[in-house]
């Protein structure tokens, strides 16, 4: 017994100094209100950076302000917060950002729900579709036209509700079919515009023992994502209010042939990809693509980072997945979208941050290069090599691009597309019938709109 006691005492003795070292803030909060411990640290940092930074501009009072930022990021975005901090410290040394970075797909919505109970952070970074979810709650602030004007007009429409714009779209991802350019050239395939042309390539692939598609269906989100791509070109391009009609009971998944076609393309992919796709993760899938095991991959720009990580000389292009009518457009998805709180006390400081984000071109290029994404600011050109850029430019020049936010606003992601994707997975695996899969989507009609 004594020995044991001794060891406990010894351990405690050893631990106490460690705690004293770390616990500077740990003891304090026991008496002080919640905000204090967190606010201390950034203040110190700021002081050290202030000295040789240029003086703050007129519209900031010079008083030290700390803004809270909730950033819902994709993994490709993680790290941009440091770049922003650095640029901000140069332009407005009195403003400090307190970042809370979470995964957009899993944690952004719960965090927003949390903060709607307790008060929003000053700045939120999400995706364009978030505007439609949160703006109607009356919690988002309008963005000043001065900053919006520095961005491209194309992305503005879908973050504008009743004439007021609540989101500043910073960059975009392109979605479509990534293809191995060298392989296409060797086999004499040209970019398919129609389903028949695509089928011909698939057949040729199969004949030559090449997997037509790389895919990673273990990630249900990827099924949901490509399904929306299909729906954009086969449904929403003809009928931009399909979702509204769906909720009004005019159309349904069980009856609408075009929507069913969009679902059926999943089967086309599934039948022409590796049998182990439900066990293949994105990184492995992308690796197979790069190593020439597959010819095409329906995906988005987030794959570019992976491709180039594995082989910086991998030569790939992009084309929109052909629809029934042969007039598919390349899809772009506004990615980083900055929203502000309607009730923030620091509106001036928020505007300073927006000023840096939209005005600092060096920062913009740095971020675009880092995330390998396309700019949504005017007159900014990233310098990273993107083999698929030539294709993107061509579609953009011919006005053959379309914003997927349209579809995501008509049929929301969380609770609807996401759940439908699970049914599609079950259908592909043969666990439920196609009719059941459609019926399940129809039954979810109440969850199909954000409001």
């Amino acid at each position, binding site marked *: 017994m004594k020995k044991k006691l001794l060891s406990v005492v010894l351990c405690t003795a050893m631990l106490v100094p460690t705690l004293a070292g770390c616990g500077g803030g740990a003891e304090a909060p026991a008496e002080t209100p919640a905000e204090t411990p967190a606010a201390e640290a950034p203040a110190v940092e700021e002081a050290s950076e202030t000295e040789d930074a240029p003086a703050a501009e007129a519209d900031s009072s010079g008083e030290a302000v700390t803004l809270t930022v909730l950033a819902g990021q994709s993994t490709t975005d993680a790290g941009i917060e440091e770049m922003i901090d650095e640029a901000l410290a140069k332009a407005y040394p009195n403003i400090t950002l307190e970042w809370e970075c979470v995964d957009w797909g*899993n944690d952004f*919505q*719960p965090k*927003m*729900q949390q903060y*709607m109970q307790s008060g929003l952070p000053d700045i939120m970074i999400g995706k364009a579709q978030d505007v439609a979810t*949160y703006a109607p*709650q009356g919690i988002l602030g309008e963005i000043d036209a001065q900053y919006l004007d520095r961005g491209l007009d194309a992305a503005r429409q879908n973050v504008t509700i009743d004439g007021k714009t609540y989101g500043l779209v910073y960059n975009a991802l392109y979605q479509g079919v990534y293809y191995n350019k060298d392989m296409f050239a060797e086999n004499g395939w040209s970019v398919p515009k129609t389903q028949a042309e695509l089928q011909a390539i698939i057949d040729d692939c199969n004949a030559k023992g090449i997997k037509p598609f790389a895919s990673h*269906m*273990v*990630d*249900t989100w990827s099924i949901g994502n490509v399904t929306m791509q299909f729906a954009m070109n086969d449904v929403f391009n003809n009928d931009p209010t399909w979702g509204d009609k769906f909720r009004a009971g005019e159309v349904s998944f069980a009856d609408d042939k075009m929507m069913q076609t969009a679902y059926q393309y999943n089967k086309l992919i599934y039948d022409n990809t590796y049998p*182990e*796709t*439900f*066990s*293949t*993760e994105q990184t*492995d899938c992308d690796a197979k693509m790069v190593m020439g095991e597959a010819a095409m991959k329906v995906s988005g720009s987030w794959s570019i980072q992976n491709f180039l990580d594995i082989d910086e000389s991998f030569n790939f292009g992009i084309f929109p997945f052909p629809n029934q009518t042969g007039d598919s457009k390349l899809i772009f998805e506004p990615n980083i979208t900055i929203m502000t709180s309607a009730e923030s006390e620091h509106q001036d400081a928020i505007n300073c941050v927006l000023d840096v984000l939209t005005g600092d071109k060096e920062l913009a290029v740095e971020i675009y290069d880092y995330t390998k994404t396309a700019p949504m600011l005017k007159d900014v050109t990233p310098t990273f090599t993107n083999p698929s850029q030539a294709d993107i430019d061509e579609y953009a020049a011919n006005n053959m691009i379309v914003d997927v936010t349209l579809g995501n606003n008509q049929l929301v992601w*969380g*609770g*609807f597309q*996401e*759940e439908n994707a*699970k*049914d599609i*997975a*079950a*259908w592909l*695996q043969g*666990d*439920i019938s196609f009719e059941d899969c459609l019926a399940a989507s129809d039954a979810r009609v109440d*969850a199909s709109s*954000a409001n």
Partner: protein
Amino acid sequence: MEKKLEKQYFAMVFPGFVIFTIGLIIPLMLAVRYSVTSWDGMSKVKEFVGLQNYINLCKDADFRSAWWFTIKFTIGNTIIQNVLALLFAVALDSGIKAQKLYRTAFFVPCLISSIIVGFVWLKMFSNVLPEINELLGTNINFLLFGSGRTVLAGLLIANNWQWIGYWMLIYLAGLQSVPADLYEAAKVDGAGPISRFFNITIPMLAPAITICVVGITTGSLKVYDLLVASTKGGPGRASTSVIYQTYTTAINGRQYGYGSAMSVTLVLALLLVAVIQVKGLKSKEVQA
């Protein structure tokens, strides 16, 4: 005197009582309250809908299948984990050398967070084990997370890998406190090793068995972390547990009231199971 003592006793219970009430019971009450509303988790309005959420639950096929998965997972875990943990404990207690080394090997996985365990097994099943097929030229299906038919088996393997060592330690501790003279006496009476196991070991272990069975069952019914970084409830909904379903409904689906009804149902079910188990197992203990 008695009153004064009671006051002092009360003062000892009080802090824990308050913390527990605020941290867990009040949230539970809130959940019960939300479960009769159609709240989306965001807006200020929480419209009262009576028992509508509960009525909808009965018709909800997804919720039923989540329950079905959770029940299968729980039964599988309770049986496999108990049996293997006990077997391992007996084996380690049989006088083999370097017992400490084995103990550590079995125990280390449970030091790893469930989130990480899920992730590790995702990699094991999809990358590492298929490679063994290639090495040996065999054709075993290791892609357990890849199909609705095998995902349960895969998760059971992951979960058992993580927890067997933990329960084994408890059984081992129990075994080592069984007085050796009981075995000696039985040996003298001519009882074989198997008869000794069932007539002495098992009854003597009854308290440990109660702890393990209840612990494993209630733990498995609450499975969530393990799924987050592995199957994410898929493929399809094949591995969606009740809590996972609750979470996606309440949060991603913005149906907080409905999700709350799900969690209330789960609490009730857990209570029921625990009461039955404790009653049943305790009565066995007395007989022994």
